[in-house]
């Protein structure tokens, strides 16, 4: 069974640009989560989507946004990129909609902002 997949694996942008990161959950999983791991920091929760709706949001500015499609895949959009947005962005998925289920992670997208 295929795990969580993310694309692209690497992304290079310049300050002020927009970045779009994509995630496909494990088949049958309806919830998708996004996390940021900046250098020297732990994983920080960004967003949780289930059934196309945003269910929870971490302490990030509104320029971090996303959406979930009917096939449960998801996009994370980062607008007006800043240098400190350079990080590994991890997507996870889980069964169910209560947010209690174990989250399974993809390999991540490494974003570099120059």
């Amino acid at each position: 069974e295929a795990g969580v997949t993310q694309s692209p694996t690497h992304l290079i942008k310049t300050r002020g640009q927009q970045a779009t990161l994509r995630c496909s959950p494990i088949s049958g999983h309806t919830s998708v989560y996004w996390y940021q791991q900046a250098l020297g920091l732990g994983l920080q929760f960004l967003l949780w989507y289930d059934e196309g709706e945003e269910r929870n949001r971490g302490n990030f500015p509104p320029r971090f946004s996303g959406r979930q499609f009917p096939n449960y895949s998801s996009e994370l959009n980062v607008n007006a990129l800043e240098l400190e947005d350079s990080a590994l962005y991890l997507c996870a998925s889980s069964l169910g909609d209560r947010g209690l289920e174990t989250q399974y992670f993809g390999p991540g997208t490494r974003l570099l902002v120059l």
Partner: protein
Amino acid sequence: DQQVKQNSPSLSVQEGRISILNCDYTNSMFDYFLWYKKYPAEGPTFLISISSIKDKNEDGRFTVFLNKSAKHLSLHIVPSQPGDSAVYFCAASAPLNYGKLTFGQGTILTVHP
């Protein structure tokens, strides 16, 4: 405010011996705890979890212990194998904030042959 802390950045263990990784938390609302391991260039892999209604959960070589009064959990790996060398993260979640896992900073485990 770091609510989940792994105070040991690294741990070195001989193959076959026990590895004990520790994690402390400050938020008494946390009621579900997980351990993940992460290899370079890969996403975190789920290892084992424990609910706050339990004080121990075992899965093969991995056992997680939870001490709610001390707000402390630990992961025991017995016996340790070189393939266990990775970064280990503990994570926690709380009611009314489900979906959000709060992670520790991670501990680098090195198992020497």
